[in-house]
């Protein structure tokens, strides 16, 4: 239990998550039907994973943000459906390998632009956002293509355990293991006060690049996941995940200026966003209103986030005058 008490920033969002799960169950009895869980999980997974991708980048501080998260996921989807599969590279190694390669490459590109060339993160990732979207449209102007069978089957349960759940758990374990290294401390320091970290001997550039690489890998995996869910390619599915990932980070108790928070909060917030969307669909609200809902939620999330920051800063500031 210690790992929950050590993550106090995530409590509000966990509570909200439980509330919305209950609301969803109340709105539709089918929600709790175990047969439905697989569909739920695979719907929620991209939200959760893109939220995690954005978290790593935001935590690295100094305006860290990755606008290219959504388009990168879309790029992976287009790559699989319209390039790899038609050319016969349908085996797991190629597909997963290509996904990870794209993720790492994107992370390195963004990371080097931010940490070495020192372009502001929003501009650097705006550039990659546009570039990836453009490339996606070039590869696949229209929805179509076909995802490989083994991938689609992963979206289904095997022996009662949804494939997606295994993935999420695996990611969770990987992150926990990674957290036990010095990286967590370094990331928090670089995000909190980069010059203090630098003067203490931390390799600030390396830490930031790794944060963006993590973001890239996770965003690419999210693309892989919704390719499995869709079963085909669609150039427009990826882009909205940028906004949702940022909303999830803000909701999840992660400081937008860096240096505070962690994956648990944003992952839960990602799930929460999915649940809210499901609730709206169940209540048969028009999809157009969902856009408005996103905006309002993001706004509320920001306000709470900022209010929390201010309170903390006021308390800390007390000590130094």
């Amino acid at each position, binding site marked *: 239990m210690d790992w929950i008490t050590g993550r106090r920033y995530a409590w509000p969002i966990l509570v909200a998550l439980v509330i919305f799960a209950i609301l969803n169950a109340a709105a539709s009895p089918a929600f709790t039907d175990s047969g439905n869980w697989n569909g739920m999980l695979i719907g929620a997974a991209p939200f959760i994973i893109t939220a995690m991708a954005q978290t790593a980048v935001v935590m690295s501080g100094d305006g860290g943000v990755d606008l290219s998260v959504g388009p990168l996921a879309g790029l992976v989807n287009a790559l699989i459906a319209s390039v790899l599969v038609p050319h016969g590279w349908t085996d797991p190694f190629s597909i997963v390998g290509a996904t990870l390669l794209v993720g790492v490459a994107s992370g390195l590109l963004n990371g080097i632009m931010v940490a070495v060339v020192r372009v502001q993160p929003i501009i650097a990732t705006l550039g990659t956002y546009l570039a990836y979207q453009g490339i996606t449209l070039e590869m696949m102007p229209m929805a179509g293509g076909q995802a490989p069978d083994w991938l689609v089957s992963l979206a289904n349960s095997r022996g009662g355990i949804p494939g997606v759940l295994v993935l999420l758990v695996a990611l969770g374990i990987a992150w926990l293991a990674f957290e036990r290294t*010095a990286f967590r*401390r370094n990331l928090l320091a670089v995000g909190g006060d980069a010059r203090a*970290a630098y003067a203490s001997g931390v390799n600030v550039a390396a830490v930031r690049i790794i944060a963006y690489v993590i973001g890239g890998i996770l965003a690419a995996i999210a693309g892989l996941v919704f390719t499995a869910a869709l079963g085909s390619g669609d150039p427009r599915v990826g882009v909205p995940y940028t906004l949702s990932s940022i909303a999830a980070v803000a909701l999840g108790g992660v400081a937008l200026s860096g240096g505070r928070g962690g994956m648990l909060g944003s992952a839960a917030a990602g799930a929460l966003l999915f649940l809210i969307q499901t609730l709206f669909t169940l209540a048969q609200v028009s999809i157009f209103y969902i856009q408005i809902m996103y905006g309002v939620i993001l706004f509320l999330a920001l306000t709470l986030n900022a209010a929390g920051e201010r309170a903390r800063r006021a308390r800390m500031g007390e000590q130094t005058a």
Partner: protein
Amino acid sequence: MSLQATKDQLGETRPHAAPGRPLLEAKDIRRTFGETIALDSCSLSVAPGEIHAVVGENGSGKSTLIKILSGIVSAESGRLEWNGEPFQVSSPRAAQAAGIATVFQETLILPEMSVRDNVMLGLDGVVRRKTNPAREAELVRESLAIVGMGGLDIEKLAGALSLASRQLIGVARSLLRPWRLLILDESTSAIDIEDRDRLFEALRNFRGEGRSILFVSHRMDEIDSLADRATVLRSGRSVATLERGFFSSEMLLELMSSRERSRVEKGARVYQTRGARVEPLVTVRGLSVRKGRPAFDFDLYAGEIVGVGGLEGHGQVAFLECVAGSRRPAAGAVHARDAQIRSERDAARSKIAFLPRDRKTEGILAPLSILDNVTVSSLNNLARWGVLRWGDRNQLADQVCRDMKVKMADLRSPIASLSGGNQQKALLGRLIATKPRALVLNDPMRGVDLGAKGELYEVLVNLAASGVAILLLSTELIELCLLCDRVAVFHDHAISAVIEQDSLDERSLIDAMFAHRKSSIDEIGSP
């Protein structure tokens, strides 16, 4: 021995060589930043097993020298030798790997991280930990024990601790490195007397082990107590290196400043005691700057310069901020005549102007011109229906810059092109352009070179003479003695003493700063 005799003995300035090979040797280091020459020809040598002081006024190049030795900034020319071998420091990490650990003037502690993480910061690789958690905790506690914080809960968030504790944690962090040279850059400004003495004891022990310490300080009592040798910097050059026994406070001061100091004193000597105090401009009643601390009353009268002093972090800045409306006091109220000051807007309306401490982050609008910077607070008075009266604006800026004696090329040059001292003058000019009734100044001479300082003293004195009330916070004791009518000294977030003109001297200030507790230094005598 007489001051003059010692100076004769020294003759030309040359680094006084210690026996054996030096641990660190810096020869003719030069570094410029754009137009400013921070270091011109600076030489320094530190022997193994030595405590070496670096002394100098603001603008003498001390902080640049430290940054070069710590790997933050590189030298443009000159030689650095470590243990006889030529030596390049490319980053703080490289400096630490070589065996140089630095405690910077700024307390670089992360409030959102635990004490343990703060102390360990930078020791690990990017991903790999230096050692397992259990061993880590041991090391951290050992290091904290040296600075007297052995009993601290290392999982506590550093943000909950006082500034003094954070400074000590910063020292603990550096101690954890495998260092042979420890650099302390004015890192004891907030530390109270017992902790400071304990730290000094630890430093002497390290010296006994053969390690060396380089410390920058302007506190003469510290230098007297600790240093084996002292190197004096002036205007970017190393002027002299003196052995213990060959230096005294007066000597060091003399070397630091030569003829400029007399100009400073002249500037301040124009000052005379004001006439009888009539009605206070600002009244403070029942004010407490922190919950639980005793409340105090205070009055600020027109035409007087009141000093505010104390160890860093003892509530004096909070007090200033309460008067300027930037902070709500924990108890009590500030009034200017009949208006209560509860916000910055209230202060502005009551014509109380505030000069923040850090001009780089809180003062100058760097990309903008001198004209913009000086007039920014008075724009409403220079416009009609929101449109600026161009001539009036230029005239005001011109007048102010002339009064402040700002050395500049043109009003339209960017303010960043001015030297530190001139920037400060411009900022003070910005306040004066608003025709204030009271000035609240947070360490205005910080980072100002001696020449500009003298001129600023004159300006302040003239302002007081014209009826402006001035509340001046300073970390330099001499300044408080020279300029002020009386000084309120803070200790532990309350006024420890208010010292009037007739009993105002460095000794009484130090006593009040430490709340009259005696330092072990005074009792034991120099080691």
